[in-house]
């Protein structure tokens, strides 16, 4: 979350909000600026929002909290800081659950089917349970902080043995032989923090779905119809095949293509039905 806390993000974000919604500016900005500096993950953010609305954690009237949570992650996205996939997922799961809860409250209760109701209850309970759990650990963490501070103020008596007494000490036992001693040195001297840069992806050239999609569109506009085998015939890696397939799915969703497959697992024919520009 470090990048979220950066001052630039804060400034960038402020200017965007100011232009976006002038009327709610002052209150919202103050709130968000606070969070940008303070929060650590979706639960932390949610807890802060709930406490700002002076709501009990088990209270279901979360509509305004939901709106604030959603606008917050939207703002974060727009701040240009970008998202790490794992962070975004956690935030989105919480946001989706909150939206579900809000939607359920907006609908007249009679129109909600029992099954949906049940699933919502479950989602809500799990979210609140996780939030409660997180809050408990957060509280304990602050007692850890106090204990460490207190402990730092008490200094241990660490004195060398008086020479008259150290002369009495029996011969020291190192307790291990040279080999074992060397092994201990190896373990202690080995770097404990390994660089956390994942290198796996460097073995493969990066494939952009957007670029492949562009290529697919151009090719199909030219030949109008093509089967999938031909579309990926000169692909240099499996990744390119996957990227082109993903591009096709997206174009199909947009209504730019038609798929024809006579037999299951047979030849997949793709026809361009989208615009030519």
């Amino acid at each position: 979350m470090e990048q979220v806390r950066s001052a630039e993000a804060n400034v960038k974000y402020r200017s965007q909000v100011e232009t976006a919604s002038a009327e709610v500016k002052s209150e919202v900005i103050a709130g968000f600026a606070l969070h940008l500096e303070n929060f650590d993950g979706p639960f932390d953010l949610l807890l802060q929002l709930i406490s700002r609305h002076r709501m009990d954690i088990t209270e279901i009237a979360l509509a305004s909290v939901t709106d604030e949570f959603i606008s917050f992650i939207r703002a974060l996205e727009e701040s240009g800081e970008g998202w790490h996939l794992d962070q975004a997922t956690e935030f989105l799961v919480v946001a989706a659950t909150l939206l579900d809860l809000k939607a359920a409250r907006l609908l007249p209760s009679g129109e909600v089917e029992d099954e949906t109701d049940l699933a919502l209850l479950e989602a809500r309970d799990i979210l609140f349970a996780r939030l409660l759990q997180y809050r408990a650990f957060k509280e304990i963490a602050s007692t850890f902080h106090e204990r460490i501070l207190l402990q730092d103020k008490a200094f241990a008596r660490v004195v060398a043995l008086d020479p008259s007494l150290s002369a009495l000490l029996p011969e020291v036992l190192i307790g291990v032989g040279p080999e074992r001693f060397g092994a201990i040195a190896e373990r202690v001297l080995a770097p404990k923090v390994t660089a956390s840069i994942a290198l796996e992806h460097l073995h493969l050239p990066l494939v952009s779905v957007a670029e492949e999609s562009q290529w697919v569109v151009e090719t199909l506009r030219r030949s109008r119809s093509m089967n999938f085998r031909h579309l990926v015939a000169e692909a240099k890696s499996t990744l390119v095949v996957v990227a082109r397939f993903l591009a096709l799915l997206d174009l199909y969703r947009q209504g730019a293509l038609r798929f024809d497959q006579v037999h299951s697992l047979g030849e997949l024919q793709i026809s361009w039905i989208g615009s030519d520009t």
Partner: protein
Amino acid sequence: MSDLELERSVEAILMVVDEPVTELTLAQVLERPVDEITTALSHLQEEYENHGFELRTINGGWRFYSRPEYSSAVEKFVLDGQQSRLTQAALETLAVVAYRQPISRARVSAIRGVNVEAVMKTLVTRGLVEESGLEHETGAILYRTTSYFLERLGLNALDDLPALAPYLPDLDRLDEVLGALTD
């Protein structure tokens, strides 16, 4: 040896030790049952209440400490050993590990709602947390707190950790449910 002499002998020994001393060691050296040593130590603790020093037991060992109230005077002499502060993220991660150990990184992430990879590395580097084998089903590395953690928090044992909020015990079952959902 009278009780008073026992207490005085314990004081004399504690004044020269360079490492914390266990009650068992004191019992062996002074040839007295462990419970008498325990009584003597807690009596001494009371006796020092109005002094500038105190007796503390941390991780099973006893030694003299200066009292926190007088830290400002002591700090002028003991400049060494200034510890850098732990971040909120590090403290929360440490709390989860302390109460749920041994625990995998993924499980800590699930509880905190954020990726804890970098924070866990910091805690390992700082000697507060260590690896403790692999999780049977997933092969994930498990983590636990170290004796240095106890020392930093001034705790005698993990059992002395303050109780988590009273509503939490039921959440052990929630962990299982969540585990089943995410595994």
